[in-house]
Structure formats: structure tokens, C-alpha cells
């Protein structure tokens, strides 16, 4: 029903006093209001191009998964308040749906305390997921898909409660930290009557305009990450990620594994380049599998060197993570985190590692078990947070997220 935003109303006032409002699609127009110079407007459009990037909210799937990494992210885990019953949860998700539909367009939410910060979409996405505990608490466990439970514990885990679990996940990402902050503030404010915030895990990737589209990003250990991912928009991606059978409330959704993985950078950096490359199984400079020239070349796990030693060692990460069977693939979309350096000079850094798949049991767990057994990288990485969420399917205009779950 929106025709004129509050912001638009203010611009209307400015226009009446004689200024020309330029054509840019967002609040950047506000900055241009004092000038009619075409060159200035073109320059402004260039300078604010990142602001106008917009991810569609309505559709078969939620946004925030099948797209390039945004620069900034926040994984907000929430715990249902004891008094939040099924009817209340439905009212909550109704508010969230309305909020997300507005924020992803770069508009303020209804009753926005700071509508001035809704300056544009800036690639904002919000992805909503629910945990097995959510279903149990609301008496919906009969609707749970098979194998929907927290991960089994692994010997390498050093899990901490403050980074783990949660009944509901709001995964919010944007290409601008101020836009992200405003969105998280808006969504958590409208959640306060229904749930408490268990964690806010903030992370980042490269900024827009820094790496070419399609380049897999490097994590803070310097490795190229995400090379074996299925390509967006392909049948491969669809079959790996998007659920097409089972409980109706989940068709069009996906299953998410969220792990906070700490990196021990100081001991990692004590290794030389050759040792690091042996641990990973890839050349660090271009990300090529050892023995190959390019990042996207297929690793040759049988190749041996002049001494008869495997070129990619038995303990190498890419050997352990390699998926021999087509049905075991996952889609990884990891962000970095950096919580600063301790007074002893130890970087508190790592990954907010997110993986999406139709089924955790048959796709993610076989890989994780191989990594647990014999991945030398485990020496320098530790999972310190873990959660599992069912990501709800997308909505059409007029529907609310989780509608079929609440029906």
C-alpha cells in the first residue's frame, strides 16, 4: 500500500523550495538536492552505486543464500520467551516479514525510531531460520523433517554456549555497516516482545569493489575459500541446497549448519609457505590444488612426486573435505570474524562458517566426519560455536514467513 515514504515526503518539501531532486533511486537523492549539475549527479550515482544494489525479498526462496557475499554480516540467535506460544510466534513472524520487506528495499520499518538510517538497500538480506528446539517449544515437533537435530559432538569441538544454539536465527547481511546496524536494531527491537537475543555474531567479507565478482574470497589464514561450491542458478545448486520434498512448510527452504571456527593464527603463521600448502593441499598464491596451475583445476589425489610421495598429502584439508559422491555436496558461504588482538598479541579471529544443504545427515556429516578423523588443519582451527537451523522458504507478497508452519 506504500505510495510515499516519510523520506519522500521530506524531499517533497525540499522540492517545493526550488531544489531539483535528482534521479538516483535512493536517499542519495537527498545529498544531490542542492545541485542541478549533471556531472555531479553522474558522479554521485557512481559514488553511491553500492547503496542501490538490491536483493529481492519475495520469491520461492529467502534471499541471503544464493548470492555473492556481502561485506558485513550479523548472525543473531534468539531464544523464545517462556510466554511465547504458537499464536505469539506467528504475530512475531508477521512483524519480521513486514520489516524485512521494507528494509530490503532500503525503506524504514513501520514505527522506525531512526528512519534517517534507511538510506538505501545496500544489498541487505535477512534470512530467517528456526531450530529443532523452536519446534519442540511450540509443540510442532510432529512437523519436524527427518534428522532435524543439533550436530553430534566431534572430538575437535570446543563449543561455547554463548556462540551456539538459539531457537531462531536472523542472518542479516549488507554491503554497508550502518545499513546493517539499522536493520539489526530494527529487527531485534520488533523481536523483544517474543524472544531474547542469545548472541550477535558479527563478521565480514571483502568490500564491494575490491574483488571481482565470482572470485572466491580468502579467509584470514590466507586460503582461498569456497572453490568447490556449486554455481548460482544451476541445477547443481538447486539439488544441493533447495529442499523440494518433505514437510510442506520447508519446501523451498534449506538446512543450515552454522559453525564459529576459531583460528590459531600465531602458530599457523609459524609454519612456512610450503608447510601451509601441504596442510591445505593448495598453492596459497593462486589457490590451485598442489600439482595444478589454476584454482578451478580438479585436484589429482593420486599424483605422486619424484620420491613417490603423494603431491596432496593424506592429511591435507582438501583431500579430507573432498566429496567423492555427488549426493554429499554442500554450499559454503563463510564470513570472517575479527574481535581484535589480545594484550598478549593473539588475534581473536576465525570464520562464521555457514553451509547449506538439503539434508545435514547425508551431505554435511560425512564430510565433517572425515575432517574430524584426519585433517591436519584441526591443529590450527577449533569449532567454538555450533547451531543447526531450518531456513524457511521464501514468501510471496501478502504471505508471512513460516506461514505453513503456523497453519
Amino acid at each position: 500500500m506504500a505510495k510515499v515514504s516519510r523520506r519522500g515526503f521530506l524531499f517533497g518539501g525540499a522540492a517545493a523550495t526550488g531544489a531539483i531532486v535528482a534521479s538516483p533511486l535512493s536517499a542519495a537523492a537527498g545529498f544531490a538536492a542542492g545541485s542541478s549539475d549533471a556531472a555531479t549527479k553522474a558522479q554521485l550515482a557512481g559514488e553511491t552505486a553500492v547503496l542501490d544494489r538490491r536483493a529481492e525479498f519475495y520469491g520461492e526462496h529467502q534471499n541471503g543464500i544464493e548470492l555473492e557475499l556481502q561485506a558485513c554480516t550479523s548472525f543473531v540467535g534468539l531464544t523464545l520467551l517462556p510466554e511465547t506460544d504458537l499464536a505469539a510466534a506467528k504475530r512475531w513472524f508477521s512483524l519480521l516479514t513486514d520489516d524485512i520487506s521494507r528494509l530490503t528495499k532500503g525503506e524504514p520499518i513501520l514505527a522506525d525510531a531512526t528512519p534517517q538510517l534507511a538510506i538505501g538497500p545496500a544489498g541487505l538480506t535477512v534470512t530467517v531460520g528456526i531450530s529443532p528446539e523452536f519446534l519442540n517449544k511450540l509443540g510442532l515437533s510432529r512437523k519436524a523433517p527427518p534428522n532435524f537435530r543439533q550436530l553430534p559432538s566431534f572430538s575437535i569441538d570446543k563449543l561455547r554456549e554463548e556462540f551456539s544454539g538459539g531457537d531462531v536465527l536472523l542472518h542479516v547481511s549488507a554491503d554497508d555497516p550502518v545499513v546493517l546496524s539499522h536493520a539489526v536494531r530494527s529487527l531485534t527491537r520488533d523481536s523483544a516482545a517474543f524472544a531474547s537475543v542469545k548472541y550477535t555474531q558479527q563478521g565480514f567479507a571483502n568490500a564491494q569493489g575490491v574483488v571481482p565478482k565470482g572470485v572466491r574470497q580468502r579467509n584470514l589464514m590466507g586460503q582461498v575459500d569456497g572453490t568447490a561450491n556449486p554455481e548460482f542458478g544451476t541445477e547443481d545448486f538447486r539439488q544441493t541446497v533447495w529442499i523440494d520434498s518433505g514437510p510442506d512448510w520447508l519446501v523451498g527452504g534449506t538446512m543450515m549448519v552454522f559453525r564459529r571456527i576459531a583460528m590459531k593464527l600465531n602458530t599457523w603463521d609459524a609454519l612456512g609457505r610450503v608447510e601451509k600448502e601441504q596442510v591445505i593441499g593448495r598453492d596459497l598464491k593462486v589457490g590451485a590444488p598442489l600439482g595444478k596451475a589454476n584454482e578451478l583445476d580438479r585436484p589429482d589425489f593420486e599424483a605422486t612426486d619424484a620420491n613417490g610421495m603423494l603431491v596432496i598429502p593424506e592429511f591435507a584439508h582438501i583431500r579430507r573435505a573432498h566429496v567423492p559422491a555427488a549426493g554429499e555436496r554442500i554450499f559454503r558461504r563463510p564470513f570472517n570474524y575479527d574481535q581484535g588482538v589480545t594484550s598478549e598479541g593473539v588475534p581473536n579471529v576465525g570464520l562464521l562458517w555457514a553451509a547449506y544443504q538439503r539434508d545435514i545427515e547425508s551431505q554435511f556429516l560425512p564430510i565433517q566426519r572425515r575432517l574430524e578423523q584426519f585433517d591436519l588443519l584441526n591443529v590450527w582451527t577449533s569449532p567454538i560455536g555450533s547451531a543447526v537451523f531450518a531456513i524457511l522458504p521464501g514468501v510471496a507478497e501478502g504471505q508471512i514467513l513460516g506461514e505453513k508452519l503456523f497453519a
Partner: protein
Amino acid sequence: MKKTVLAFAGAIALVAALSGCTNAASIGTDAHPEEMHVDNAWVRVSEFSDHAGGMTGVFAEIENHTNGDVTLVGGSAEIAGMVEIHEVVMADGAMAMQKKDGGIVIKPGEIVALEPGGLHVMLMGLKQPILEGDEITLTLDFDGAEDMTLTVPAKASFAGDETYVPEEK
């Protein structure tokens, strides 16, 4: 953005009408010239609205797309015993709200913002609590245009906690 353009056109139309130089309708992209537009409407949830007998405010942006003055004179809602148009005024050094006599006049092309701390539609004598995320239906009564029935979401807001000045009897 369509929204900005519309507001811009509205403001220009107003200026044009005042200067008498051009046909306002030729500037706007207005497909429904006889309508009122109500956007971004919501009803506030607070400790005053969480019980039967309580009260609360409805906020929105109302744009006059007709060719004449339109007055928002009142309204009705299934959930409320009484609906009034209120304004917030300074009384004894504090912001207080009171019934706005004569309603709110909206000129052609003009947008009036009903917002916490300002003009609003007051629902009084609530028949049941309004909870966050609820949707309520109300009808706005206009003089000069068709009345309009809306379904609006209920949301909490930290802004606009005025005291209420009861009407003198």
C-alpha cells in the same frame, strides 16, 4: 524512486496550483485522481493498549489525490468504543494530546503525517487488548472523499509518550 517522484510531483503540483500557471494533473503520475492514499499505517502497542478499556494511537501518512480539500474528521473500529482525531500540544510545560476540533484538513496534493508526538487517530475504549503483531481494522471518515477502511499492524514504539488531556465536560 517512484515514491520520491510522487512526493516531488505533489509538491510541484501544489506550487503550480498556487501560481496558477499549469495543469497540476499533467505533472503527476496520478492514476486515481479521486482517491485518498494512506501509507505506512500502524497502531501502537503500549501498556495503555494491553487491556480492555485501554486506548492507543494509529499513525499513517495520508495523501490527498483529489482536486479539493479533504478533512479527516474521525473514524470507527470494531475494536474501539470511540475513535477521535487528536493533536499533541504544549500544556503546562509538557506535551499533551487532545481532540483536534474540526479534524485535519488535507489540501490537494498534500501529505499529512500522523506520527507519535503529533497528529494521530485515537482509539479509545478498547474492547480487547491489542498485542504486538496483531492486525486491526479501522475506517477513516473523510469529508470531501470516500471513507477508507484499512487493516494495520500493531507495533511497539518508544516515541511519543504524551499525557492525555481529557476534554472538559
